[in-house]
């Protein structure tokens, strides 16, 4: 039922599922994550990737007994979109019997994303990313998690590399993405990072995990959409492009002399690691009705 274009192999449903599960385990083993006995906060948006992620980690936790999972969902406050995915996230956590914590931008920061981006919708995606990352960290720490698992897939990783090139962000290009946790941030790992998005979607269909979900209304504003279109066009003509883009950046980062060090200061407002006086999230919300949460 599936042609794996990069290798030319045809896979039936059973073999695709086996291969996805096997590659996820290999990725986790290669990254040394999570350490045995960890409490893992699983970022669960309710979309296809995080739903598949929770399903896979639940299966691994059940077999190994050495993982303690808690699902975390962040409600950014995007009208007409997040309500439905929240319901899906709640149903998924319940299906796997995983404790589920939700938190909203409004509760954590005093603002919904819709309010934050008013007048600057073209920045919605990047603003959302900064604040969502902060929200995940706050909630995961509150739940006593040792690390955070996110559902980024191979396509996401390749898009991020291309976006960093397009932005001229040499810091990010030369930073080894597989470095262990930076400073005070909770370590993150991405078990699906080597799985193409299409295979994640097919795995979810095979496993009966989900129905089609709405798409974020801000997706058209994002540079990521352009990067996705470029990379998908290249992947169609030159199968394996996504994987080579990601591997290439990894090799570059490891070859760079020492790489780029992580931020070493602390945010004056919330105490999180920051390369400046304020962390990205606090800088973004500066002057708004932000309620900082100190972690130390």
């Amino acid at each position, binding site marked *: *039922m599936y042609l794996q274009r990069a290798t030319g192999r045809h896979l039936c449903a059973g073999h695709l599922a086996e291969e996805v599960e096997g590659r996820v385990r290999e990725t986790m083993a290669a990254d040394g994550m999570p350490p045995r006995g960890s409490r893992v906060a699983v970022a669960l948006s309710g979309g296809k990737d995080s739903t598949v992620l929770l399903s896979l980690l639940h299966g691994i936790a059940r077999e190994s007994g050495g993982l303690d999972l808690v699902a975390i969902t962040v409600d950014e406050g995007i009208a007409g979109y997040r309500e439905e995915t929240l319901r899906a996230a709640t149903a998924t956590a319940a299906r796997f019997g995983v404790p589920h914590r939700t938190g909203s931008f409004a509760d954590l920061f005093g603002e919904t994303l819709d309010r934050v981006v008013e007048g600057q919708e073209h920045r919605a995606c990047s603003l959302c990313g900064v604040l969502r990352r902060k929200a995940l960290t706050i909630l995961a720490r509150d739940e006593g998690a040792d690390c955070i698992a996110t559902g980024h897939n191979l396509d996401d990783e390749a898009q991020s590399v291309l976006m960093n090139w397009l932005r001229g962000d040499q810091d990010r290009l030369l930073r080894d993405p597989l470095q262990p946790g930076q400073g005070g941030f909770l370590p993150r790992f991405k078990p699906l990072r080597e799985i193409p998005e299409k295979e994640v979607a097919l795995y979810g269909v095979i496993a009966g995990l989900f129905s*089609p979900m709405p798409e974020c209304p801000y*997706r058209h504003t994002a540079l990521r959409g352009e990067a996705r279109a470029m990379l998908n066009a290249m992947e169609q003509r030159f199968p394996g492009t996504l994987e080579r883009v990601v591997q290439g950046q990894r090799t570059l980062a490891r070859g760079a002399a020492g790489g780029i060090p992580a931020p070493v200061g602390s945010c004056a407002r919330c105490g999180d690691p920051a390369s400046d006086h304020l962390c990205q999230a606090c800088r973004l919300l500066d002057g708004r009705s932000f309620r900082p949460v100190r972690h130390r």
Partner: protein
Amino acid sequence: MRVELPDGSVRTLDADGIPVEEVLARLGVNPVEVIVTRNGSLVPEDAVAAGDDEIRLVRISHGG
């Protein structure tokens, strides 16, 4: 053949015995971005579609 597009609209193609990938090409759709069913079953893009088949394209929705 009857083809349901990701947005729910339906196109009828006058074709028989062509690879699904060619169906996608005629519609301007990248196989990397969609899942395809033929008469309700998932198929790879090198599967052959017949004139009386019902093809459905589901876009792989973004955001995880």
